């Protein structure tokens, strides 16, 4: 069966991509098909996921709105519409992460604990890619991803007249898009940093709790933090890249240099997380210590 030949060397000869890359995309397409099938089989779960994320979205906006109302319409220069746009941009990044990356990363500690990681390592792919093709793609969150995109667009449009020249510039939008993508990469790197210690200590499954505790930091405007903390969140551990930097750049709360420096810092953060994973992987003993 063609779908089962991801290890095969008899691939289409016109495909010039390296074998690993070809393997990944073929397997990932299959994983996507399988995940869709499973999700559609459990249709009630699909509905419940949607309801959960929708209620959570409403709660996030109520919380953010309450803060702005209390502050009299703006917080440290961020208007109500800008805060709502920031909340929605964070929602886009969050939903994208949930859809495509949460299962591979959050399943990893259990795979290490029960020895199932062996199965991932046998695939002709980097283990992180192997995890992606052996885990679920959470398509149930796609509707909320698009809802957040719509809300972000609505509030960005609502706030645009205040900075029309800036927002109408194509390079600004390009950099904004690049920063948003980097925000997802930082989210991924943070999750990797939280989950990878599982290689060193038995059952470090609480990394998930740690991730959820800290990930919300990126949804706050950078200038609500004391200067030192703000700089750490921008340039050292760039959690603000997850939402506050793209939104801050779009709304001129950060200039291009600050955004670019935060971008460089994000690449370093992502690289460090991958190095950490690769190093930790060498500690894997293929021992089933659990379940």
């Amino acid at each position: 069966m063609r779908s089962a030949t991801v290890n095969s060397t008899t691939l289409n000869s016109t495909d010039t991509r390296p074998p690993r890359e070809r393997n990944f995309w073929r397997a990932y397409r299959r994983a996507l098909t399988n995940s869709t099938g499973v999700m559609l089989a459990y249709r009630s779960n699909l509905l419940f996921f949607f309801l959960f994320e929708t209620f959570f979205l409403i709660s996030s906006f109520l919380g953010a709105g309450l803060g702005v109302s209390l502050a009299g319409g703006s917080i440290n220069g961020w208007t109500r519409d800008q805060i709502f746009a920031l909340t929605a941009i964070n929602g886009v990044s969050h939903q994208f992460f949930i859809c495509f990356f949460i299962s591979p990363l959050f399943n990893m500690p259990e795979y290490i604990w029960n020895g199932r990681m062996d199965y991932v390592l046998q695939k002709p792919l980097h283990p992180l890619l192997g995890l992606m093709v052996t885990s679920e793609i959470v398509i149930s969150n796609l509707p909320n991803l698009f809802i957040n995109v719509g809300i972000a667009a609505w509030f960005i449009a609502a706030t645009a007249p205040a900075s029309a020249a800036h927002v109408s510039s194509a390079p600004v939008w390009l950099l904004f898009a690049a920063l948003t993508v980097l925000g997802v990469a930082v989210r991924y790197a943070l999750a990797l940093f939280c989950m990878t210690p599982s290689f060193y200590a038995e059952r470090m499954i609480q990394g998930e709790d740690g991730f959820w505790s800290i990930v919300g930091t990126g949804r706050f405007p950078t200038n609500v933090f004391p200067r030192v903390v703000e700089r750490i969140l921008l340039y050292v551990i760039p959690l603000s890249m997850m939402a506050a930097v793209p939104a801050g750049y779009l709304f001129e709360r950060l200039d291009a240099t600050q955004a670019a420096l935060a971008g460089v810092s994000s690449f370093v953060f992502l690289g460090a997380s991958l190095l950490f994973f690769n190093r930790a992987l060498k500690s894997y003993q293929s021992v089933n210590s659990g379940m």
Partner: protein
Amino acid sequence: MLAQQLSVQLGYRLAFAQVAVFEALGLAGTLFYWRAAASNGNSAGSLAGYSTASIVVYFIVASSHMTLEESGLSRTLSMDIRTGKLAASLVRPFPFLLQPVAQGLAYSLSRLFMIGPVLLLIFAGIPQLRDFFVGVAQREGALTWIGAYALSLLLGLACNLVVRLILGVLAFDMTQTWGPELLFMSIFFAFSGAVYPIDLLPASLVEALSWTPLFYMQGLPNLVAIGRITGDPLSAYLIRGVVVLIATTLVLVLMWRRGIRKFEAIGI
């Protein structure tokens, strides 16, 4: 059993340290946001009766209460029922439901050890927050206020435990309990007071919610902590909360007895 559960929670020191640091950072983010909101406050300085200090404290307390609540019990119980592993727990010479109770209690205590010192530092170190608490303690009487808060927090943790177990016990009748869990979480976020002060909702809705465990899991302890509910209304809510807890526990026991009768310990 409690000692064993505590040692499990505290034994993984690396995980403990990681979560403690991250939760402190997460709390700090919330704190800075609401501090900024407070310092930008309008001339009236209040929203629906909330002072800037009280709203900051509300959100810190709410996120702390979320940290204390064991949310994994339902998943564990559901999985044990589904896989048949529950059978191993049933041979122990005491009622099964005591085990998750011990687990939940140990979880809350270990989390209290983690975030308690951080909270004390925050509340004692920031003058506005310290003054706020001193004001509430002077107005209500320190012992009365602390006692009422402790009672409401215990009630909330107990309600959380029972509700989570009810969700887990659904696995006797369902292959997957994700759906009901997620539905519950969505309702919890929207109507418990975890994400915004529950008394900002219409009074009739708050009254209706006070007949559900949701109100006691977050709303009541949060409101008592900031001195928004005191005196006779507080006593009435505490009595009603105990009634709700007993009723919810009865539902759990009935569901458990019904489920355990048809449990076949085979698993899937």
